[in-house]
């Protein structure tokens, strides 16, 4: 019973303000009618509310609300310049929470861009850019070797001057060979 009174007293304010559900309201009302302690508490709440309402209404009657509401209304309906509207839109669109979707989107776009050369042979933007080959090491075993890279077609050519070794050594000149390039 004591616990019940405590619960009821905690809910008295909400009950008097009409914030409780129908069943809760009915339960509190029945308890208050049969409980002198809670009934007295309820009457104190009611007196307090009456006093507060009297004070607030008395003071409020002296306040000029019309100019205040006029000012608010003017600001609401005033035509705002385009940059202010843009700024408002940007502020809403680029708040961190709304930008969260952009992170996976950017990653997916980058992965797609760098993977397109797997599906389209002519795609040269992703990991395919820089099409040329690289010669890491080369050993001609005594033969002259030339490495040539042609930038237009990005062709790498390794040329072995197979029969020029003796001739080069005797003349001391670079191999001309039969090759024309």
């Amino acid at each position: 019973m004591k616990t019940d009174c405590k619960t009821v007293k905690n809910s008295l304010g909400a009950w008097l303000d009409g914030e409780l559900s129908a069943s809760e309201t009915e339960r509190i009302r029945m308890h208050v009618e049969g409980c002198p302690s809670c009934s007295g508490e309820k009457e104190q709440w009611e007196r307090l509310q009456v006093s507060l309402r009297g004070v607030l209404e008395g003071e409020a009657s002296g306040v000029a609300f019309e100019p205040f509401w006029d000012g608010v209304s003017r600001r609401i309906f005033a035509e705002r310049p385009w940059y202010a509207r843009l700024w408002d839109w940007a502020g809403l669109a680029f708040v961190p929470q709304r930008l969260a979707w952009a992170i996976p989107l950017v990653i997916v776009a980058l992965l797609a861009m760098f993977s397109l050369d797997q599906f389209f042979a002519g795609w040269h933007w992703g990991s395919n850019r820089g099409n040329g080959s690289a010669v890491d090491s080369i050993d001609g075993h005594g033969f002259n070797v030339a490495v040539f890279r042609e930038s237009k077609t990005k062709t790498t050519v390794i040329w072995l001057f197979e029969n020029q070794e003796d001739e080069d050594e005797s003349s001391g000149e670079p191999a001309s060979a039969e090759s024309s390039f």
Partner: protein
Amino acid sequence: MNLLVSPRRLNLLFSLWLVFWGGSLEAAEKAQQGVQLNIGTILASNESDGFDSKLSKMKNQLEVIKYRSYHLVKEENQKVPWNGNAVFEIPGGRTLMVMPQEYRNNRVSLKVRLQEGEKPLLDTTVRIRNRGNFLLGGPAHEGGVLILSISATTQ
């Protein structure tokens, strides 16, 4: 638990997963599948004019090497595992050995040896773009020179 189910956390986890998945999947797949090697043996000479229609896709590349005629002598494909050795017979008693070493940054690293009989002529390591090629030329053959187009594809 709440931390895991909040949308921002989920977004972050999804992003991380995408990054690792995207980066590792491609390399792992390629490591398993090996490399398809294609060797085209081309005879280039100045004895006559002519261009083999089978080489039309390589015309721009071959124009770098200024011969009057190009003829595809032989074309051979082999699928070889990583660090496996593929041997190709080249006209004139020569042998081309190609060993795919690694795949990195969309480049296939190939260790290549050309030899004549048992005598090595050339050893080189070249990194070429996946599905790309390079040319190895110079060995004399039938009044011209042989040009080998060495290409590698890993799916």
